[in-house]
């Protein structure tokens, strides 16, 4: 498409130019065909995968591609898979030169046509950095790219904000992955507790709401009854409490609220909510089992959901599953002597509060 010619023609010829332009739009690419790509079968895939995995001495390779994994996501069928010969085509050798190191730098593609065509229009690259607000002091709600349960200050300028480094350089993944324990080599990415839109960031010099305490006391509802010191308890209450404790204490004492909380915090720090999405209208409850090492065993299952259509439910479920699987790292840190209390876990992910941030 010789757009450049047309454009410069248009600029010079004026009224006549745009009439000529008509041709430019007739050269639309022909309609694209869309087709399924043939796939390796699941069995074959697993076989290859397991075979190829053997030589890898990685510690966290253990999660096998269990066939059940597909059961918990009915909307993501892999039935279309058809066996495909796995011999490597010769052309693949030519790929190597492709992997030039700096390719992946996050700069936008700037095809030559853009600048050629329109000297007045520069392609999109600028971030909102141009729009520095005027006031200097903003105690809480700084616009950050990240909104997290607890606010996180900007890291030191030269601290690497990088999930990757954090993960690899902290084999000791304290279950809480706690942003309130910044002794890790890399600082967590700065986060504010609410979504700071440009409209919000303008006038308020004082925080609209005070920061939440770093570790909030768990709500009454989520706290095991027995761990609640009930000072004014009468005999009946004592009985009830004792009964509750008894019922919940098959082996060893129940989880303390702190232990339960650390599990909650560990997962919520990996639960990424897309607040503008339809899926953020969906509350899902998922169930899974942990091994004694605190690692997820078997599938993560969707138990129930509330709100949204099937697609949104699926998306919400996937986000919940990712949170659980991703934050387990080497295993959730829960007291082994209480294993029976946390072997099976059900987590409800309710994004309602997030939507309002």
């Amino acid at each position, binding site marked *: 498409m010789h757009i450049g010619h047309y454009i410069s023609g*248009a600029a010079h010829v*004026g*009224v006549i130019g*745009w009439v000529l*332009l008509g041709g430019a739009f007739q050269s*639309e690419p*022909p309609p*694209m065909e*869309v*087709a*399924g*790509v043939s*796939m390796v079968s699941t069995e074959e895939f697993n076989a290859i995968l397991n075979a190829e*995995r053997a030589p890898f001495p*990685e510690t*966290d390779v253990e*999660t096998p*591609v269990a066939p059940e994994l597909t059961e918990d*996501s009915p909307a*993501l069928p*892999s039935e279309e*898979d058809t066996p*495909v010969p*796995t011999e490597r085509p010769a052309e693949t050798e030519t*790929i*190597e030169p*492709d992997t030039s190191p700096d*390719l992946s730098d996050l700069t*936008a*593609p700037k095809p030559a*046509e*853009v600048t050629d*065509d*329109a000297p*007045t*229009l*520069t392609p*999109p690259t600028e971030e909102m950095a141009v729009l520095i607000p005027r006031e200097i002091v903003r105690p809480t709600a700084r616009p950050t790219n990240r909104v997290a349960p607890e606010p996180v200050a900007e890291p030191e300028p030269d601290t690497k904000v990088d999930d*990757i480094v954090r993960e690899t350089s902290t084999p000791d993944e304290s279950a809480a992955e706690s942003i309130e324990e910044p002794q890790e080599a890399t600082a967590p990415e700065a986060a504010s507790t609410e979504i700071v*839109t*440009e*409209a*919000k960031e303008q006038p308020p010099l004082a925080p609209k709401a005070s920061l939440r305490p770093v570790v909030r006391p768990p709500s009454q509802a989520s706290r095991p009854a027995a761990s609640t010191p009930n000072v004014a308890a009468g*005999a009946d209450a*004592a009985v009830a409490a004792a009964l509750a404790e*008894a*019922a*919940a*204490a098959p082996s060893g004492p129940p989880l303390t609220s702190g232990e339960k909380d650390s599990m909650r915090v560990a997962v*919520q720090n990996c*639960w*990424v909510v*897309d607040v503008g999405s339809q899926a953020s209208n969906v509350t899902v409850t998922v169930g899974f089992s942990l091994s004694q090492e605190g690692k997820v065993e078997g599938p993560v299952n969707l138990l129930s959901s509330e709100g949204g259509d099937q697609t949104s439910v*699926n998306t919400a479920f*996937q986000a919940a599953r*990712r949170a659980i699987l*991703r934050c387990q790292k080497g295993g959730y840190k829960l007291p082994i002597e209480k294993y029976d209390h946390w072997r099976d*876990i059900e*987590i*409800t992910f309710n994004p309602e509060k997030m939507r309002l941030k």
Partner: protein
Amino acid sequence: MTRLLITLLAGLVMFSQVATAQNGPLRIEITDGVVEPLPFAVPNFVAETGQASQYARDISLLIATDLSGTGLFREIPAKAHISKITNFSSPVQYADWKAINAQALVTGAVSVSGNNLEVKFRVYDVFAGQELGSGLRFKGTTDGWRRMGHKVADEVYSRITGEGGYFDSRVVFVSEMGPKNDRKKRLAIMDYDGADIHYLTDSSSIVLAPRFSPAGDKVLYTSYETGFPQVFVLDVGSVQRRALQNQKGTMSFAPRFSPDGSKVVMSITENGNTDIYSMAVNGGAPKRLTSSPAIETAPSFSPDGSKIVFESDRSGTQQLYVMSVNGGEAKRISFGQGRYGTPVWSPRGDLIAFTKQNKGRFHIGVMRTDGSEERLLTASFLDEGPTWAPNGRVIMFTRETQGASGGASLYSVDVSGRNLKKVANGASDPAWSPLQK
């Protein structure tokens, strides 16, 4: 009494330990999460033929840029990758991608033969260790590589977010040049990301506020080419245009298509009074929908075609109202401080975007269609004229800067208020197309 209780309790405890050795699950509720971009990896697509390597590189980069540009995703750069994808059919080493915290992985391959380009791809949920959806293949021409890349990115976006994408879309807008008191304006069209600009008119007369037809093949706009503002309809392919309404002594502006593309609503001004009219695209007499002495303009259809939201100053200041497509009584929906204008119904139908003026500043905001849950997304000297991405997720608008040297630019912002960014300089009045077919 106490002793009795304790004995009783002891019995119960023993009983329950036997009876519930396998006790109920630990139940946790999580209401706090993280709002942050989801890390993904798009290793270079495999070039399956000799000529394909440049396309493979460009397309992978385009996909990564599309996804990162939403603010919902963050690309993990290739230098951090442990695995390389050298064969599209090889199984994915999930452990390698987990290790770098890539939550989604996109692999693909490109082949070229002559002018024909074929792109295939797969999306993986790394931590779940499974593919999201199944592989897809697009066939097209090398000319259309950008569109194919956008289409792949749309599919990837859709599989991860569960919502439609918007990358394979275009934006029609007004290109602006020159100082404020002698600004040259021309209609132009570009890809959603600012690439591939074409001009649709010259700059000999003022043009304003183009709007796409639902099929994306036509554009309504206002032009002064007869000396008076008048609504025109332009065919994007042929660039042929015609005046839609030509009643002497009137001006017409602020047009918009109905969702089925058959009708146009717009403002017509007669004797200084501006009201909203509806007429068939193919002609016929305009039907009057409002008839107050107030300024009633900027009408926009609901996606089901049953209602129209518009602005009116019948209360004394600009406010938003909703009425039936046939006119009649209108219900006011905006009640906050300040003035509200240019309402646009979202394609999802759940929100209305608008321009708000309050205390000397302009905002782009959204509210529910009943006016509740108003949220302001931006603030500046002058923001106006929101338009929705085809999936109802992103809003693009005009931002004009202050002062004698001020100029107009296009900005976009996520409906959550995040990810505000500039799309193009020297441009105003954007209108987003539907997804291309």
